[in-house]
């Protein structure tokens, strides 16, 4: 009994010492204030804090506030100067000359120069940053630094997407004086970063938190406003929501759809919808048809499946409204390339799907299933049934897909797998019929669209051309788009590509997914990704 009594005393003491004063809820803070701390939740321990050596979303989320790119992207995905003040494009897009900002210093006081840019690209980004290495790396000829404030990138031929591949997510610039002569994967500065960004490194407790402090010498006047940003590692999504409700954190990068409505009703929170994430932006949930399988050789069957899919139901039931029906192969987030009125794009029509299946030779039986009658490459009497491979975390997509296709007499067998096993099954072994992948398009089709469609990416590279689609016309149009610098002309090339794609249907583009940032109403001034807290403020 004594023990129980003392336990009560202890909890009473803890209760008194740790109780917080709950202020009355404040209206949304609309006028910025200087100072204060923002506590943000992140989902995983990043392990290290150098965004130049990885495309890991966990690392980028935790580290981008400490670094800069040559440019930043506006909410409309337009490039504007960041470490670069301006740039000239010459030789029809084969030469980019960047004029760097004056007076920028690294967090340790060393001056930032063109040598840092050249070093970052040549020694780090083009080797270790998989997206930049695979795209810019293939096109680049040389980098030169005529003086401390000028960097020139020369490409083998005109390379249009370059300015969109230079933000802090695609090409963060790291200090040469710290990384020169070392293995960038093992440099101790990966745990104590030195950047040029709005916030400087303060401390990192693995698995627990990363603390950043205001960079008083930041090159944008009046920014940042916050004194401190604390990134707390909270792996469980439900626990993140509870921590927000309990006031332990002020900002969540995303929230499960089921909790969103409750937070909206509760009040005291603000919401920011975005299709931009440090791990990948402009993502489309895409069904791939394995074109090597007999069942998907006939485009009428593929069109039937696409037409039987009710995308709006995915938005409502799987995403809880956090997204929208995809209208084209290229995301609506890439404004210049997205074609929004494609006549060939399938839309839900159950009767049309049934008719297409009948025409393709898949005939309904008495029990509602369909069997082959004169389908090329398939023995008569074979039931219409195929596998659907997916990440275990996408189970809800699988269930709805199966239910919708059962409605038109197609039997779907779900095959959930962990991500790295999925990558091997689909891209190395090619042992699948159909699948669903979140293909993130990035800021430019060259980053995350082309890999899905060009014949050179059929093969063992993960998250490339899952359908094994090959069309010489599409190949040459993608080449043309890469070397066409004028955005209007380039957009027209992408429109032609999309017109072909919605006819060939190697894939079906179901929904564009979005994330919802949620933050406490006492804070404001956030932007979408990367430097999300650069101009943010919190009333204390």
């Amino acid at each position, binding site marked *: 009994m004594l*023990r129980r009594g003392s336990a009560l005393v202890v*909890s009473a003491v*803890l209760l008194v*010492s*740790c*109780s*917080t004063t709950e202020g009355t809820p404040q209206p949304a803070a609309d006028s910025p204030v200087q100072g204060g*701390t923002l*506590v943000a939740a992140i989902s*995983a*321990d990043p*392990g*290290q804090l150098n965004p130049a050596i*990885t*495309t*890991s979303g966990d690392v980028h989320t935790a580290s981008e506030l400490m670094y800069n790119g040559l440019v930043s992207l506006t909410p409309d995905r337009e490039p504007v100067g960041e470490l670069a003040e301006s740039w000239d494009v010459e030789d029809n897009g084969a030469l980019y000359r960047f004029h760097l900002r004056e007076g920028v210093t690294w967090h340790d006081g060393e001056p930032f120069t063109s040598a840092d840019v050249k070093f970052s690209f040549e020694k780090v980004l083009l080797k270790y940053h*998989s*997206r930049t*290495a*695979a795209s810019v790396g293939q096109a680049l000829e040389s980098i030169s630094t005529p003086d401390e404030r000028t960097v020139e990138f020369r490409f083998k031929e005109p390379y249009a997407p370059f300015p969109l591949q230079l933000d802090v997510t695609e090409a963060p610039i790291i200090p040469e004086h710290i990384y020169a002569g070392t293995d960038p*994967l*093992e*440099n101790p500065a*990966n*745990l104590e970063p030195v950047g040029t960004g709005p916030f400087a490194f303060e401390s990192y*407790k*693995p*698995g*627990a*938190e990363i603390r950043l402090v205001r960079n008083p010498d930041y090159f944008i006047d009046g920014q940042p406003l916050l004194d401190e940003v604390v990134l*707390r*590692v*909270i*792996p*469980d999504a*439900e*626990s993140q929501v*509870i*921590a927000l*409700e*309990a006031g*332990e*954190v002020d900002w969540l990068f995303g929230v499960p759809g089921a909790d969103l409505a409750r937070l909206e009703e509760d009040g005291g929170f603000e919401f920011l919808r975005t299709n931009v994430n440090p791990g*990948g932006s402009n993502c489309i949930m895409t069904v791939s048809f394995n074109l090597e399988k007999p069942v998907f050789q006939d485009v009428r069957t593929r069109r039937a499946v696409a037409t039987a899919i009710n995308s709006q139901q995915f938005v409502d039931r799987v995403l809880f409204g956090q997204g929208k029906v995809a209208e084209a192969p290229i995301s609506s987030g890439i404004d210049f390339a997205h074609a929004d009125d494609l006549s060939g794009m399938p839309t839900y029509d159950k009767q049309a799907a049934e008719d297409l299946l009948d025409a393709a030779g898949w005939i309904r039986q008495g029990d509602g299933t369909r069997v082959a009658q004169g389908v090329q490459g398939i023995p008569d009497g074979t039931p219409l049934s195929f596998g659907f491979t997916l990440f275990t975390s996408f189970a809800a997509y699988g269930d709805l897909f199966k239910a919708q296709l059962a409605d038109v007499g197609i039997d779907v067998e779900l095959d959930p797998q*962990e*991500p*790295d*096993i999925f*990558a*091997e*099954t689909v891209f190395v072994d090619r042992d699948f019929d159909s699948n669903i992948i979140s293909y993130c398009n990035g800021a430019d089709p060259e*980053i*995350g669209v082309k*890999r899905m469609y060009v014949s050179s*990416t059929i*093969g*063992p*590279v*993960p*998250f490339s051309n899952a359908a094994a689609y090959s069309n010489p016309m599409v190949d040459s149009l993608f080449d043309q788009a890469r070397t066409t610098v004028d955005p209007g002309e380039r957009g027209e090339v992408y429109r032609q590509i999309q017109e072909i794609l919605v006819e060939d249907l190697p894939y079906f583009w179901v929904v564009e997914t979005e994330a919802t940032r949620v933050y406490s109403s006492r804070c404001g001034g956030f932007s979408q990704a990367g430097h999300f807290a650069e101009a943010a403020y919190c009333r204390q």
Partner: protein
Amino acid sequence: MSWGYLLRRLAQLVPTSALILLVGFALIHLAPGDPVLALAGEHGDAEYYDFMRAKFGLDQPLHEQLFTFVANMAHGDLGTSYVQGRPASQIILERLPATLLLTATALTIASILGLGFGIFTATRRRAWQDTTATTVLLATYAAPVFLIGQALILLFALGAGWFPVQGMTSAVTPSNSFGHAVDVAHHLVLPALVLAAPEVAVIGRLTRVGLLQELGSDHVRTARAKGSPPSIVVAKHALRGAVMPVVTVIGNRVAHLASGAVVVEVVFGWPGMGRLLVDALRDQDSPIILGIFLLVSLTVMTANLLTDLVYVWLDPRVLFS
């Protein structure tokens, strides 16, 4: 017990750990999946993946990778984490204190509460207190750890506001070390209770059964007949015999605590080794996975050895040869 026995038991740790590492190595490398895919994510090209594989020695044949691993282990080197670029041993040791604090606290709570519950229920056999406590213990034992965890968070953290929802420290750090200790203790209460809950049930029920048996035995009847007060009878005469099986169980539960800690650390955002293991498994970061395997198996084996030694101390009739 002879010194020879102790030495033999200690010597057995070496081949057992080696076997565990070998099986672990085979499991990780023969299972589907590729650490470079986990590391690089999407968007790389074939050249990139080849470069990274060569960088980590993953392009070598499996037997050569095993040879390198064994050679490194012989020097006490677990290898370098693929994700973090640092020695795996350093990364694991950083996260060890948090897990030790959590599991040791949970084991202490479980032992104290378990014995308490056992004594409480055994001395009130078939009374309503016994029935109630026994039912509650059974429910605690049956409920999954994450369910108890979420329930306690909703009740005592979000609901009553008595405890923090997650983490090991507050975002606003106290300035002095006493304040820091109180802060950590405050964060420790809920996760330690959740981790202890099923252990309380096991220890409590075992103590109850053991004690009931002892209370009906001849030497206890003799003690009662000699006029010893009931509390002395329980504490001095019955409990010693009753805790024998309990000691075995406490030793064996170390393995359960280690696995339970993984779930509790995820639910409560506790920055320990269990969460490191979850991340490493996701990333297929084998140096870290194998390092944790080794550490946990050594801990479990040591706990078993200690259990055997405590046995001898409690009951000198037990002889090992």
